[in-house]
C-alpha cells in the first residue's frame, strides 16, 4: 500500500487556554486533491501550519511522505505553499523573489514557469513588489508555489485575490498538477471551488475531523444537492 502523503496521528495543539486541535487522525491520499473545509477557528490553518513546520504540535505525530516531521527541514523541499495573502519584501522585484527562492531550494527538477507565462507576469517581474496590485502579487505567489514542481501542494484560500480569468487558469493548473501525480491540500471557504477541484473532503469542526472521504460520498450521505448544502447540514448536525 502506498504511504499517505500526509499522515496525522492524535495531533493536538493548544494556544493558551484555547484547544485548537483535539487529537486529529488523518491520512491524506497521494495524487488526489483534498479539500479542507470548516468554519472559522475550526483548526484548518493550524493543521496546515503544523504540516509546514511553522507550528509545533503539543501531542501526536505528523509524517509527510512517510517521514516524521519533527523540527526537520529537508522534507519541505517537496512542498509548494501558497498562503492566503503572500507578502514579499516591498523593495524586491518579482524576479529577485524568484531568484531567492531558487537559491534557497535549488532547482534540480527544473523550473515550472507555466503560470508566469499564462498570467503574463514577465513584464511585471522587474517592478518593485510595492508597485504591484494585490491581484498581481497573488499571481506571483501562485507562480512561486508551482515553480519547483512540488509533489505536495498546500494552498490556503488560493483564489481569494484572483480575478475570474486568473482563477480559471489557476484551477486548471491544480488539476494538471494532480494528474501528474501531485497531492494537493486545498483549504477554502469557496465551496463551489472545492466542488470543482476536490476529490476528497476533510471537514474540520472545533478541532476534530467530522468527515473525511470522497466528495461524492459526502453529498450522497447527506442526500443534498451540492457541497455547500452538505457542509451546512454537517455544521447544523454538530451544532444540534
Amino acid at each position, binding site marked *: 500500500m502506498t504511504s499517505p502523503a500526509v499522515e496525522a496521528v492524535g495531533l493536538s495543539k493548544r494556544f493558551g487556554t484555547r484547544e485548537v486541535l483535539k487529537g486529529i487522525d488523518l491520512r491524506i491520499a497521494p495524487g488526489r486533491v483534498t479539500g479542507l473545509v470548516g468554519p472559522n477557528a475550526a483548526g484548518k490553518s493550524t493543521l496546515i501550519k503544523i504540516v509546514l*513546520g*511553522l507550528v509545533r504540535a503539543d501531542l501526536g505525530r505528523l509524517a509527510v511522505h512517510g517521514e516524521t516531521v519533527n523540527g526537520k527541514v*529537508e522534507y519541505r523541499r517537496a512542498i509548494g*505553499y501558497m*498562503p492566503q495573502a503572500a507578502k514579499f*519584501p516591498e*523593495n*524586491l522585484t518579482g524576479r529577485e523573489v524568484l531568484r531567492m527562492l531558487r537559491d534557497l531550494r535549488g532547482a534540480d527538477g527544473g523550473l515550472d514557469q507555466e503560470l508566469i507565462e499564462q498570467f503574463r507576469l514577465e513584464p511585471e517581474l522587474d517592478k*518593485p513588489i510595492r508597485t504591484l496590485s494585490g491581484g498581481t502579487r497573488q499571481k506571483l505567489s501562485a507562480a512561486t508555489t508551482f515553480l519547483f514542481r512540488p509533489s505536495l501542494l498546500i494552498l490556503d484560500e488560493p483564489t481569494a485575490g484572483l480575478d475570474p480569468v486568473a482563477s480559471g487558469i489557476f484551477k486548471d493548473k491544480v488539476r494538471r498538477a494532480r494528474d501528474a501525480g501531485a497531492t494537493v491540500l486545498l483549504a477554502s471557504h469557496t465551496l463551489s471551488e472545492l466542488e470543482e477541484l476536490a476529490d476528497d473532503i476533510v471537514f474540520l469542526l472545533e478541532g476534530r475531523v467530522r468527515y473525511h472521504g470522497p466528495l461524492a460520498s459526502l453529498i450522497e450521505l447527506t442526500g443534498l444537492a451540492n457541497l455547500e448544502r452538505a457542509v451546512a447540514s454537517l455544521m447544523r448536525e454538530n451544532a444540534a
Partner: protein
Amino acid sequence: MNTAGKVVRFQLHDLVRNRWLLGYTIVLLGLTTALLWLGGGGERAIVSLLDVVLILVPLASVMFGTLYLYNAREFIELLLAQPVGRPAMFTGLYVGLTAPLVCGFGLGIGLPLLVSSATTVSIPARALIILLATGVLLTLIFTAVAFLLALRFEDRARGLGAALAVWLGFAVLYDGLVLLVVLTFGDYPLESPLLALTMLNPVDLGRVLLLLQFDIAALMGYTGAVFQRFFGDALGMATATVALLIWVVLPLTIGLRWFRRRDF
C-alpha cells in the same frame, strides 16, 4: 553560500532600497557634518557627537528593527515554509538587518569624521575608533533587543510601544533613576551597586567607554563618573567592552531560543 548567507543577501537587496534606512543615514550625515563644521570642531564636536551616538543610534536600531520584523512577518513564514532551518533564518535575519544599519551609521557618522580628521579638525584616532565601535555595538545590542520584543509581543502596536519604552528607559530615564537612588541612599556606600546599575544599561556602558577617552566624566552623568573613578582607564575599558559584548550575546541567545520554539 550557506542558507543564512542567502537570507542575508536578499535582505540586503531589500534594505538598501529602504527609505527609512536612507533617511537615517542622511540625518546622521547632516548632524555630524553640522556639528563638525559649525560646532567648533575637535573634542567639543566629538562630545556633541556622543549624544547623537548614545541617543539616536539606540532609538533608530530598536524602532527600525521592531518595525521591520513586524512587517516581514508573513515573509518570514513563507521562508520558514521552505527548506530553511530556524537557526539559519534567525542568523540571516539578524545579520541582514544589522549590516545595513551599521553601514548607515558608518556612512553617516564615520565618513564626515574621517574627512574632517584628515582635513580640518584634529581628532585623536583612538577616540574616533572608540566612538565608531560604540555606535556599532549599540546598533547590535538594540537590534537584538528589537528581536526579543518582536518575538515576545504578538501585537504590533504593543511591540512598538515596548520598543519605545525600552529606549526611553535606557537612554533617558535610567540616569534619573540612578540619581534618585543616590539621593535616597546617600548615607550608604553606593559604589558597588552603582557599578552594577551601569552594567545593566548598555547606553550607560557606551557612555563610560566614550567618556573614559575624554576625561569629561563629570559632564556625562553620575554613573560614568563613578565608573571612571573606580576602575581607571584600562580596566574600565575592558570591563565596559566585555559587558557590552554580553549585552549583544545575551538577547541574541534568548531570541534564538524563542525563535526556535515559536509558533508562526
